[in-house]
């Protein structure tokens, strides 16, 4: 498709424009995430703090007013849980003030678009990182398409204000790490430190960046360069700490004490039980199989195949290097050239983080969204495999070459079709290999994305009722979603407490429980209720509604 009017290099622009248009067209289709209200309050809390810090009186007053109006008896007190990063929440709060967004639907949908924008920037950097490594435009684009067509990432990129932002910054930080490999100078180290600091402020997981930077510097130490390397390690640590303090207002006062308080709070987050394969576990004592099973059931088959093949080849290569290490050799022990070093960086961090999460009792809940940034490594390793295949394809006959490419695009098409089937619940995606029994033995709609749809249906179903009483048989604050209804419908809905469920007109359940439902019948549906309707997608029950007989 190359002529004087069209150049292959336009492909990337076309694909990126297409993705942006898709994002723009569908961002308002998505439901609302349970965490959004808290993050809005976090944004205004820190905006107020920054405004007061710099004596910006008008902004301080405005943000204070907004903060006071964010209420909810189930909302975590922001003064205590004020440890989150500001990289998303404060810009979102500023946009809300600038554009004078007063309606809840407006300011939450603005945030949905903003998360997508962050993800979009992540996609651009993902393209850049793959192009940096593989030097092939088409391969980098395939990687971008695969990341965009990762259903759980795509779905979350319209409402998950934490994990998608973190994924984006993991990609950007890795890109700057690759730049330091290409050119080990102070400019690249400063930028790497800056983005490492931003990533750390979002999730402490990102300390793997400075740690692996130090390990990789030590692994490439030689007699003639050790002074320079040690200087750069010290320089990176110092700049990283400085940037961390600068971009995290929590650390502006009593820096060390505030930093330690972050870890105290970590233990207080999510003390509930997690449903996994029909059993309830404490989030700190999940079975070792939790993360591998979740990755296996919620990742498209194409992604899994290319990842496993790429991982096997990459691991075999580095294992071969490892067992052939000699006390004196010209080459580095683990890699030959910068490209292999980049691959080793990806493989090393993927294995370290994966095993760390499994064996160090890292808290996981809400499926595996906290570890969604692993998709960056998974797709990178998959692209590594495709690169090898493309090199091999050059030497085989054309028909075989065509068949392989056809199968690949068939899988891409299949994934795209399944994404459409799940729309707008791609965040709750399960692949084709997962039986329905498994889908319904784990947490599905853990952030209550379906709640607004349910409430709107109830309003439509009861046009003449002045008040509809709704009970919730799940660990979910449905009351947070009422403000998102049309103003004329808000007074129509009354949420009753769990103990009074039997007196309600309808009971809504998404199957999420903070206690072991097999032992404690807290969320049992009263006997005077029958199933009224349910939302099932691809065999997974998203929610059920019960109505009084």
């Amino acid at each position, binding site marked *: 498709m190359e002529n004087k009017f069209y150049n292959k290099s336009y492909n990337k622009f076309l694909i990126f424009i297409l993705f942006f248009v898709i994002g723009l067209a569908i961002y308002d289709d998505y439901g609302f995430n349970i965490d959004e209200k808290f993050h809005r309050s976090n944004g205004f809390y820190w905006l107020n703090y920054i405004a007061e810090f710099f004596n910006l009186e008008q902004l301080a007053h405005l943000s204070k007013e907004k903060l006071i109006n964010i209420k909810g008896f189930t909302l975590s007190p922001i003064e205590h849980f004020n440890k989150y990063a500001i990289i998303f929440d404060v810009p979102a709060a500023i946009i809300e003030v600038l554009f004078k967004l007063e309606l809840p639907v407006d300011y939450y949908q603005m945030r949905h678009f903003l998360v997508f924008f962050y993800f979009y920037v992540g996609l651009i950097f993902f393209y850049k990182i793959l192009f940096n490594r593989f030097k092939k435009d088409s391969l980098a684009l395939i990687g971008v398409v695969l990341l965009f067509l990762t259903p759980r990432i795509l779905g979350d990129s319209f409402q998950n204000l934490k994990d998608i932002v973190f994924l984006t910054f993991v990609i950007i930080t890795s890109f700057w790490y690759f730049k330091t490999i290409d050119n080990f100078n102070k400019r690249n180290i400063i930028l790497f430190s800056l983005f490492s600091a931003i990533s750390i402020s979002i999730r402490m997981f990102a300390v793997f960046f400075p740690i692996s930077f130090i390990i990789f510097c030590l692994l490439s130490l030689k007699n003639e360069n050790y002074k320079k390397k040690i200087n750069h390690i010290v320089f990176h640590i110092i700049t990283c700490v400085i940037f961390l303090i600068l971009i995290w207002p929590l650390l502006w006062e009593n820096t060390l004490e505030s930093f330690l308080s972050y870890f105290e709070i970590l233990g207080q987050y999510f003390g509930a*039980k997690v449903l996994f394969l029909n059993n*309830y*576990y*404490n989030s700190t*004592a999940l079975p*070792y199989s939790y993360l591998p099973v979740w990755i296996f059931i919620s990742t498209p088959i194409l992604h899994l195949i290319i990842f496993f093949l790429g991982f096997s080849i990459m691991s075999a290569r580095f294992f071969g290097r*490892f067992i052939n*290490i*000699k*006390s004196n050799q010209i080459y580095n*022990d683990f890699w030959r050239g910068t490209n292999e070093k980049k691959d080793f960086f990806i493989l090393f961090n993927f294995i370290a983080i994966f*095993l760390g999460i499994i*064996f160090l*009792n890292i808290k996981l809940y809400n499926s595996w969204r906290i570890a969604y940034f692993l998709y960056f490594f998974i797709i990178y390793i998959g692209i590594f495999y495709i690169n090898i295949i493309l090199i091999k394809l050059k030497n085989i006959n054309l028909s075989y070459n065509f068949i392989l490419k056809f199968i690949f695009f068939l899988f891409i098409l299949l994934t795209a079709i399944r994404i459409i089937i799940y729309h707008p619940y791609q965040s709750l995606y399960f692949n084709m290999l997962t039986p329905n029994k498994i889908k319904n033995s784990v947490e599905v709609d853990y952030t209550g994305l379906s709640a607004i749809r349910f409430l709107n249906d109830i309003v439509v179903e009861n046009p003449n009722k002045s008040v509809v009483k709704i009970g919730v048989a799940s660990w979910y604050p449905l009351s947070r979603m009422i403000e998102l209804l049309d103003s004329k419908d808000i007074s129509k809905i009354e949420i009753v407490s769990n103990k009074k469920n039997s007196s309600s007109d309808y009971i809504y359940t998404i199957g999420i429980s903070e*206690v*072991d439902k097999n*032992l*404690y*019948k*807290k969320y049992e549906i009263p006997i005077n209720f029958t199933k009224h309707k349910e939302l099932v997608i691809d065999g997974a029950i998203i929610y059920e509604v019960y109505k009084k007989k």
Partner: protein
Amino acid sequence: MKLFIYKIFTAFILFFILYKLTIGHTIRLVEEKITNLNSKENVEYIKDKIREEIKNGTKKETLISSEDAKLLNNFLIKIQSELKKLNNK
């Protein structure tokens, strides 16, 4: 020296994984069971169970066998007499 460090590091990692898969795993299971024993849902479960047993018991014509009834009767008389003795002192 370099090879020695690599060997030590590899041995440590392998030992850690092996430990976690064997002893660590067992400790984790025991910990989980202990935590569950005094968990809210377990307490609720026991409460429900007691309620259920009482309900079932009240439905029966006789709660205890005649032999047990005799034994309990003797036991209560014995306690009563000892309490009386104590009060008379």
